[in-house]
């Protein structure tokens, strides 16, 4: 099975506090640690497990700039066979539909049986996979937390729905699935693995190479524009207990007793 995983490099929220910059119009981007968007990493792992059983290749693609190559190399170190960077000045300022339009260009110039995305990016809207599927007229499922290959033509998938329930469906190939975290346990990538792919040439495609009309992507074509970042005026918020850990534990103990927290 030929599998494409669409991935993104995002500020890593487990490594950074996201705060506003001094001007108050963007997040503070100095010293941010970036990594692959977490659900996208699960998607790559899932793709690797599928090809390990059923054969085929895993390609990882991202829409971005040279800086984003680092996540492509990381996913190649994980085991992806190929990686491509979709990059063009015309792509600057794309909204979700713009990104989906670029990816559609790449899917159409290649041949994939299965396209995976992460369910949502840290700064995204859980939208690109569903849009891409509709553009290609492929079936789509979001929040996928299990995949079983039934034959060369369809998959049996589970989706995470409310209350811990799982919705089981059959879906025809080719299709687009957005992958939820927890579907698998992504393998560890060591420095040695990263070094091995450090000098691999990563092909880059621009609008012309993808057959994407430049006027259909980028800031000018965007339906959605993020104006700023802000922190909403806080509500009453928590009463913060101050002091050493021991002093705070004493205060908290009294509160817990009063509120029925000690059974």
């Amino acid at each position: 099975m030929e599998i494409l995983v669409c991935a993104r490099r995002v500020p890593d929220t487990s490594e950074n506090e996201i705060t506003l910059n001094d001007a108050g119009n963007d997040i503070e981007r100095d010293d941010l640690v970036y990594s692959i968007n977490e659900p996208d990493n699960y998607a790559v792992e899932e793709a690797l497990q599928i090809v390990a059983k059923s054969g085929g290749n895993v390609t990882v693609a991202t829409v971005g700039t040279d800086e984003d190559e680092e996540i492509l190399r990381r996913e190649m170190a994980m085991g992806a066979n190929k990686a491509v960077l979709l990059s063009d000045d015309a792509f600057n300022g794309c909204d979700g539909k713009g990104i989906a339009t670029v990816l559609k260009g790449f899917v159409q110039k290649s041949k994939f049986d299965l396209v995976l995305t992460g369910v949502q990016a840290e700064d995204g809207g859980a939208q690109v996979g569903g849009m891409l599927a509709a553009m290609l007229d492929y079936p789509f499922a979001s929040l996928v937390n299990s995949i079983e290959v039934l034959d060369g033509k369809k998959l049996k998938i589970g989706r995470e729905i409310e209350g811990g329930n799982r919705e089981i469906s059959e879906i025809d190939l080719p299709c687009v699935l957005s992958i939820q975290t927890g579907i698998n346990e992504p393998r560890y990538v060591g420095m040695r693995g990263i070094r091995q792919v450090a000098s691999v040439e990563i092909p880059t495609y621009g609008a012309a190479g993808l057959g994407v009309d430049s006027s259909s992507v980028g800031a000018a074509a965007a339906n959605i524009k993020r104006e700023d970042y802000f922190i909403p005026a806080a509500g009453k918020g928590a009463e913060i207990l101050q002091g050493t850990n021991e002093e705070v534990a004493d205060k908290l103990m009294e509160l817990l007793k009063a509120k029925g927290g000690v059974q």
Partner: protein
Amino acid sequence: MTARIFAYIAYKAGAIDDTAAELFAAARKIDAAASPTAIVVGSGPDVDAVSKNACALFSEVWKIANDSLAYPNAELVRQALVKVIPQGSVVLVPHNHFGLDLGPGLSINLNAAFVSDVVAIDGVNGATLNVVRQEFGGQVSTHVRCKLSNGIVMNVRPGAFKAAETAPINGNIVDKSAEMGTLTAKRRYLATIVPEAGDVDITKEPVLVSIGRGIGEKDNIPIAEELAEALGAAVSCSRPVVDAKWLPKSRQVGSSGQTVKPKVYLACGISGSFQHLAGLKGNPFIVAINKNPKAPIFQVADVGIVTDMLEFIPELTEKVRETKKVTA
């Protein structure tokens, strides 16, 4: 504003979802004079009953009944909606597991803009609709401008808009079923699997020691278990702990896990995403313990402690044990 506003009505076993009234409230934020149209999709007696119920709030309810729509398969629902919704409309959809399936693709088929997980609406300004979203797990918000000219599909966060208290009205049902023709899907619903019950039922526990990413590693879980034991509480958790397979799914609090109603909730190393908070009901006394003073959990907690939970919790456990010894 001239665009027509539609609200997709979610329901389960014939009971209308809370999001129906929330979408109505959201429509009124777009345009205070809006008279949004409800769309109820399904089959059999449920679709009739829900359509009738929706008439108490919406002056017009479009009913789409079709045998293939017995289960809300987003692919089929999308085909149905595309057949009836006029170009340039604003379509409101709840941002839940169904909305994630439906919204993005629907926007492509309607050639409309798509805006996801909207938490507030500032209103229409000329050719744009201005809304508020959150990013990075709710750590920051953003003002977003959406082009109105081709219509908008808007996924609205459940619980973000307060349903207004309005007297019931007597709306009209318009039956759109005849416009459906044949609907076919490349994705077919098979079954819903209910999770196995865990060893502990966290939905019935009055006190929960709940752990998140801040627990760091599996080997630290006994730190939380010891506190829970001292308090006579149970250990629950947020999604990253289940993703890492450190605790079973039955211990997860949140929209994709369990809904709990404890008296006291100790959120330890939990940032407080809206998906997590959606599983916390009954207005418990919330204690938040987190290293990050900006964590959204401090906005909803009653008491906050800005510290490393791994250092603080053993201290607290000791304190609880001493207290119990004295009183015993």
